């Protein structure tokens, strides 16, 4: 019988092997290698990388663009996450009810999710064009002066936030919709029989029951905010004056425009650290909901 057990072990590992090789090669190895390279200087020409300890991190502390992109990223998360999650909940409540044209509305809300971020960026780039773009055309009707939305330090980041909310709310709506459809209607019906108002039912019954979904969506939205890069690459390239530089874009610039791989590795380590904390938070929060059988 030990033969059979041995076969099980071998078959199990053989089945896992192809996936394991790729996982190690493109996830675990690069993650560990980032930490390792971040402790070394960037190899240049004939000069190989040498161990520099925490020098790259000291550079980071003195790097104003790093701080700027970190603060921008926090602002970006603060500006986009609550709005898109609130809108997503509102959308889900609407299209889950018996509203007129429910299917059409679902499609309308969800469509931006299907579009490539690059397509979205191009369309909105056009809207934001000073003088000529749609937004200026509309504000012009009210006699407002033309605005360089993406060229102005005070409006560039909010302009990207608007696009992000538009793109993401419909995606998060799906999670709420799934959760709403999983709720038992009996509690709500009982409350309605007691004469509770819709607002009261939402506040006291529906919303608390949706809490696990809200946490899940919130954490994912924050993670997405720290992965945001496509819009920046196409719409602003971090400008003007680094006002739209976000962390991943800074890594991209340092790594692939200045080819400073050692410093990029240090930045990567920090970003991965942030993402891990957020994701672990998600696991801890959702522990009650997810069962790994």
């Amino acid at each position, binding site marked *: 019988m030990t033969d059979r057990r041995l076969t099980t072990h071998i*078959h*199990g590992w053989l*089945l*896992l092997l192809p*996936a*394991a*090789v*790729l*996982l190690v*090669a*493109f*996830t675990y190895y690069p*993650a560990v*290698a*980032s930490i390792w390279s971040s402790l070394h200087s960037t190899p240049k020409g004939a000069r190989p990388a040498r161990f520099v300890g925490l020098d790259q991190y000291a550079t980071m502390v003195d790097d104003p663009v790093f701080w700027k992109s970190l603060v921008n990223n926090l602002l970006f998360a603060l500006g986009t996450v609550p709005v898109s999650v609130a809108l997503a909940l509102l959308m889900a409540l609407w299209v889950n009810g018996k*509203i*007129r*044209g429910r299917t059409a*509305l*679902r*499609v*309308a*809300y*969800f*469509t931006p*999710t*299907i*579009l*490539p*971020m*690059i*397509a*979205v960026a*191009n*369309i909105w780039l*056009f*809207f934001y*064009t000073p003088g000529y773009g749609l937004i200026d*055309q509309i504000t012009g009707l009210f006699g407002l002066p033309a605005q360089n939305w993406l060229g102005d330090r005070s409006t560039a980041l909010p302009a990207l936030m608007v696009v992000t909310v*538009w793109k993401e709310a*419909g*995606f998060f709506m*799906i*999670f709420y*919709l*799934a959760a709403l459809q999983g709720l038992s209607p009996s509690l709500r019906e009982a409350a309605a029989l007691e004469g509770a108002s819709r607002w009261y039912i939402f506040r006291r019954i529906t919303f608390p029951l949706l809490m696990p979904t809200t946490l899940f969506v919130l954490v994912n939205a924050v993670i997405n905010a720290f*992965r945001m*890069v496509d819009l920046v*690459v*196409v719409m602003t390239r971090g400008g003007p004056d680094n006002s739209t530089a976000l962390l*991943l874009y800074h890594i*991209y610039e340092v*790594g692939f425009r200045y080819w400073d*791989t050692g410093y990029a590795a240090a930045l990567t380590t920090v*970003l991965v650290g942030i*993402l*891990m904390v957020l*994701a672990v938070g998600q*696991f801890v929060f959702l522990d009650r909901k*997810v069962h790994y059988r």
Partner: protein
Amino acid sequence: MTDRLFDMLETAGAWLLGILWVLPLLFALWTAFHPGAYAVRFDPAAPLTLENFASAWAAAPFPRYLLNTVALVTMILAGQLLLCTLAAYAFARFDFRGRQAAFLLVLLQLLLMPDALVVENYRSMHALGLVDSVAAMALPYMASAFGIFLLRQTFKTVPGELDDAARVEGAGTLGILWRVYVPLARPVYVAYGLVSISYHWNNFLWPLIITNSVTTRPLTVGLSVFASTDQGIDWSVITAATLMTAAPLLVAFLLFQRQFVQSFMRAGIR
């Protein structure tokens, strides 16, 4: 009475938001199908034209980009289906030594975003001599922890008696997987496939970094190159190119919107 008023207000609000959400897309359609002069001038009598699509099609190798994207998405999906099925089967039904630890490691990948690891992955691809190839674009995404997890959960619900019955009939490990597990998990495969295709059709940063020639660039990168060289020259043509990039997925979505939405839901509940 006030209830009806409230309902009407609510419907109006829902529709207003809906219109706001499709407006950018409708606007892009208007721009793309009308001559450049009408890009921001709404004249119902404006002549319709396919000129912008023709110009964009001629100005950049979009057919090639499309082919690259299709090759990329197909390669990733094929790899994912194969690798994730095998690994999920191992986790669901094989009690091998180190299984728990291996599964925890796989879950760890759910937390680690490939996007953040682009610098090291580029170095690896460079060392392997794979830079600027479709394989390099696809490889980091093939062993998807999400796919493994999703399929493992599904395989666990398959009754063990079916397994035994197939074994009695003389089926081997892979035979059982192919004849019993894969057919039973078909809806999950469809859901996972749709999520994967739409994600990789739209992926940008990694393809942008790893490709540098027309023969490998996918649509998203091709579009960004096209739009940045022609920046500000002709919005109608850029919009037409933008729609061409998004069109295949968008059309598929409109045709199969129910399946799309349900697959995202299924993927979301995980």
